């Protein structure tokens, strides 16, 4: 389900370039930030590097930008090996977490900086900075200094500055994490819009799974310096390759179960659930089953009941925190349309309404 729609190139008449990480390793003193890291990005694709802090995502980004030299491995951009090229020669636009604008320059001067370094004429620079300030909607603030701009505006300028040099690849290192929630989601959409418009291959680092799901063509989930899974947001969510991915992206319930046949497993409290597993466990084996909250439904009454500990209304869904008879916490998300089911009940029983996410050997 790879998105190929963005490779046509935006209105700047460029199409993105493929990017390849090939067996990158990078150690800081005794800590291995990256160990044989491989990743291939298609032209024009937006790849989100997602993972907990310390997983190596920022290091991967800095290696691509040339700000960090790998101990071994190769980085190629559009079939050119850039591994030993210094950052200044790579033509990669970079946006940092925060405070990266040069404080002694106005927004416009910041945007023009890369062009000034390249010795472009003032008239060309002005034309280009006008174009970009327009693109990010800050033309009126062009002559303000960074400290006169809000956090969101600063990050827009940083984006414009990175794009001004017509970079071959755009990299963004947690560009939204210092902003408040509302600005974050609107700027997120704007970054995506601009990225699609330009058709530029983009890497976006974040530890926020919601952000990753919303913006990515493909998500690269990283863990301990390695790539755990590279797939579309939907696939990462519905079909996680590993337990870590399942836990990190979205919420899961871990429940003990017993295999009934090659595609059904009997899960404690919930009952039978479908699962797809190639290796197939022998019938009767004890397993642990990972189930998403929305794959479980509730109904009134029944024998195997759970106590409702808390109900939180999240708009389109209601999140229920339940305690089953063996004192296991179970999180269930039901559509708001089913609110009546739990309106007055203190106990509910459960059933499966979707597939199991993962089934793993051995119950604890």
């Amino acid at each position, binding site marked *: 389900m790879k998105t190929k729609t963005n490779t046509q190139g935006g209105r700047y008449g460029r199409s993105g370039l493929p990017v390849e990480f090939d067996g990158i390793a990078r150690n800081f003193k005794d800590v291995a930030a990256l160990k044989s890291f491989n990743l291939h990005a298609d032209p024009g694709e937006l790849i989100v590097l997602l993972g907990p802090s*310390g997983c*190596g*995502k*920022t*290091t991967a980004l800095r290696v691509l930008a040339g700000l960090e030299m790998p101990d071994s491995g190769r980085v190629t951009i559009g079939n050119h090996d850039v591994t030993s090229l210094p950052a200044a020669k790579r033509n990669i636009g970079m946006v940092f*977490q925060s405070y990266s604008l040069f404080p002694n320059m106005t927004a416009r001067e910041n945007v023009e900086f890369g062009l000034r370094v390249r010795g472009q004429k003032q008239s060309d620079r002005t034309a280009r900075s006008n174009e970009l300030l327009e693109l990010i909607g800050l033309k009126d603030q062009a002559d303000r200094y960074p400290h006169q701009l809000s956090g969101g505006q600063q990050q827009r300028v940083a984006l414009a500055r990175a794009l001004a040099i017509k970079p071959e690849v755009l990299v963004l290192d947690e560009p939204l994490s210092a902003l408040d929630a509302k600005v974050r989601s609107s700027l997120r959409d704007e970054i995506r819009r601009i990225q699609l418009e330009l058709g530029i291959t983009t890497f976006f680092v974040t*530890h926020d799974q919601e952000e990753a799901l919303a913006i990515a063509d493909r998500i690269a989930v990283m863990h301990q310096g390695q790539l755990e899974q590279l797939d579309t947001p939907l696939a990462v969510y519905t079909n996680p390759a590993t337990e870590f991915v399942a836990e990190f992206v979205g919420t899961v319930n871990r429940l003990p179960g017993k295999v009934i046949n090659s595609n059904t497993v009997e899960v404690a409290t919930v009952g039978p659930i479908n699962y797809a597993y190639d290796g197939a466990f022998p019938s009767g084996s004890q397993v642990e089953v990972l189930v998403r909250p929305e794959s479980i439904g509730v109904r009134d009454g029944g024998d195997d009941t759970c106590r409702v500990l808390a109900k939180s209304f999240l708009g389109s869904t209601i999140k229920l925190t339940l305690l089953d008879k063996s004192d296991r916490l179970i999180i269930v998300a039901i559509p708001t349309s089913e609110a009546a089911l739990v309106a007055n009940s203190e106990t509910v029983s459960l059933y499966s309404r979707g597939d199991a996410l993962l089934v793993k050997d051995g119950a604890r």
Partner: protein
Amino acid sequence: MVTIAPDITSKPGSANNSSDVLRLGRPFRYIVLTLVGLFFIVPIVSSARFSFLGNHNSFTISAYTQLFGTAQFWSTLFLSAKVGVGTVFLTLLLLIPTVVWVHVRLPKLRRVFEAASLLPLVVPSVVVTLGVITSFRGLPNIIYGTPVILSLEYVVLALPFSYRALDSAVQSIDLKTLVEAGQSLGSGWIKLLRYVLLPNLRGGIIGASILTFAFCLGEFAVASLLSFTTFPVFLVQVGQLAASQAVALSLLALLFTWIPLAVITIVFSQRRAKRSTPVLDDLEIS
């Protein structure tokens, strides 16, 4: 002579950062720091050597024994200490309520008061002395004719750093919330001061006191021009008669100012370091 407090208000510099920004070579660092270090150490070592120098390069402690045997040494030291204690007392009495008040009631004017505390830097102490003579000559003798006037003026002259020490101490605690919490629990201002403010401001109060006291022990211009023989004035008189005694005395005076200053500088910088735990996520192992 204008002195400035160690900058205890400055924000913690991100240590890992600046060394990366500068990328200066090791030889450069060693050469610069060694040369500058020598400039500061050689006079101390020389003073020590000089003060123990007898006839024909022999070693003697006579400079020190003679000093300690001089009645004036003790009396001037006592006078300076008395002036110092008075000044510290007056300073705290005046500044603690002011600083607290400014933070609680006039937080917007905080910068204005900080700037006002720097005003004494605009008027050199020699000029202040002249002004004191011209304007206070008519005052009763108990004020103008006794060292009381020294304490009164030293409060002003030491203000640039005493105010700053207290101000940054108050700034570092959430004073407004503490006061409001105290008031909501029914505590009056006196109790608030005693049980909430003073314990929380202890560091700043000690810092301000040491800086002020050190200033008083070292101040020369006002005291000598108003003809009070304080410790530094005595030191100059000794210097005209016996160089080695003057040097011995200077060395003692320097050590006595440096040691407490070093202690508060270290204490303050440690506290500053403690408060700024690095955000690991920002750096990600780098």
